[in-house]
């Protein structure tokens, strides 16, 4: 981990801190600055054991301005959105929402080294953007081939099972109003880029 350097603040010309940046990119009042480092989130997190840093540690790193370490870490990608941390946090910090923010920032800044997790989101969304509906099993297989070809053997049984039980589709359904959906999403992306 890099050393923490605190830039001297000069009135009016201070650069936005990473903490402020994260708060700004999170919808609503996320209360991140009220974190008391109690660790309830880190203790609750189902995937906490496999994270580079627990959510609490990530928050300490954010307020210490360690942007690179934060955005390079696997922590937000390992968040499964279980919301345990959020209902338990004694300071009502919107932890899960902040994890989403960190994912977006990491993609924006091309920071997360392991492209597997962002890729999954992207592939998922590509289907949605082109068909309007998701196609998760097809996606899972494709994702797997790309990132974990050996894992495919382990999953093969499952794939066969799903096909034989009629639970696996070969193509997503395309919705009727695809043009309208595309227009909506394009406009939304325009708005997001403006913000």
């Amino acid at each position, binding site marked *: 981990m890099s050393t923490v350097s605190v830039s001297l603040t000069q009135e009016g010309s201070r650069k936005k801190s990473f903490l402020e940046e994260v708060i700004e990119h999170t919808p609503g009042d996320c209360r991140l600055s009220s974190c008391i480092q109690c660790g309830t989130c880190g203790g609750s997190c189902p995937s906490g054991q496999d994270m580079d840093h627990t959510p609490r540690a990530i928050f300490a790193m954010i307020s210490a301005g360690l942007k690179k370490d934060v955005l390079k870490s*696997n922590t937000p990608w390992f968040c499964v959105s279980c919301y345990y941390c959020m209902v338990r946090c004694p300071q009502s910090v919107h932890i899960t929402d902040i994890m989403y923010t960190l994912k977006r920032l990491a993609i924006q800044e091309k920071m997360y080294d392991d492209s597997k997790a962002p890729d999954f989101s992207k592939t998922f*969304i590509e289907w949605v953007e082109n068909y309007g509906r998701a196609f998760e099993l097809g996606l899972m297989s494709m994702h797997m081939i790309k990132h974990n070809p050996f894992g495919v053997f382990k999953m093969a049984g499952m794939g*066969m099972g799903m096909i034989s039980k009629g639970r696996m589709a070969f193509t997503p359904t395309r919705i009727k109003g695809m043009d309208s959906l595309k227009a909506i999403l394009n406009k939304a992306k325009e708005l997001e880029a403006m913000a």
Partner: protein
Amino acid sequence: MKYSYFPGCSLERNASAYHVSAMAIAEPLGMEFIEVDDWNCCGATEYISLNLTASYALIARNLAQASKETSTKQLVAPCSACYLNLKKCDAYMKESPSLEEKINTALAAGGLSYKGGTLKVRHLLDVVVNDIGYDAIAAKVTKPLKGLRVAPYYGCMIVRPKLGENGTFDNPEYPTTLDKLLKVLGATVIDFPLKAHCCGGHMTQISESTGFELIRRLIKGATDYKADLIVTLCPMCQLNLDAFQGAMNSHFNTSYHMPVLYFTQMIGLAFGMDAASLGIGTELVDARAALAKIGVEVPEAELVVKKPPKEALPMPSMPEEK
């Protein structure tokens, strides 16, 4: 009672059993479902990681579509992820006028609009236990699930986070509505400590070992508590616990066998409906032995290897097929 119904992508495909059984119990329980016209994917937990505005616009298109239905303002989702996404989008739009305006600017590009708070977003379980009620359900039970030990499993997104003024319809740490429902159906309900723990969502795709560990905890928990089966209310949970159970077993070198069914299927069985008509038999972890305890016969699943349609996209070939 009339409801707008948002099936979601999972129910269209891998969780069709959930859809089929929900439809099957709708009539006896007096629920009329009107499917949202030309609905689209809610984005699961993925879209918001990429683009905040677009993810909300994607969800809001569904709200806009559903709000066109004049006969009801209740929107029901059987999938917990869809439910949370729809509910969250509606709540945040109501809470923040600036977000509402932004989303509506996007929606306008597709000729749509939505005002936060117009619809009341409900989970199917909420509707069944609170609108229909335990008494009405009890009155229809003809084949009580006597002797069946079930682990009620809620997962995360149906009870968390607390959103908006009304919060959640059940306790975020220790929900009990499904427990009560299953008791009404005559089952022996175990006090399952992991009932609101996480199934792992899409974790198997991001870190296999992490995802499998989350699945293992739940399957082991239910096994330790000597459950015959797990009852769930979310297609993602069912997929993880059922479809990935085999892979999880090989990963840990274990041999758990824990069937996972939907609560709608359990209601149907208790109402004396035929197992096949409830989509039972499509689960990968065989539920026959468990269901035999209550005298339910499950038909042998017919192999339905469909021919890919013309427009089909190429499938990755499975090594075993060669």
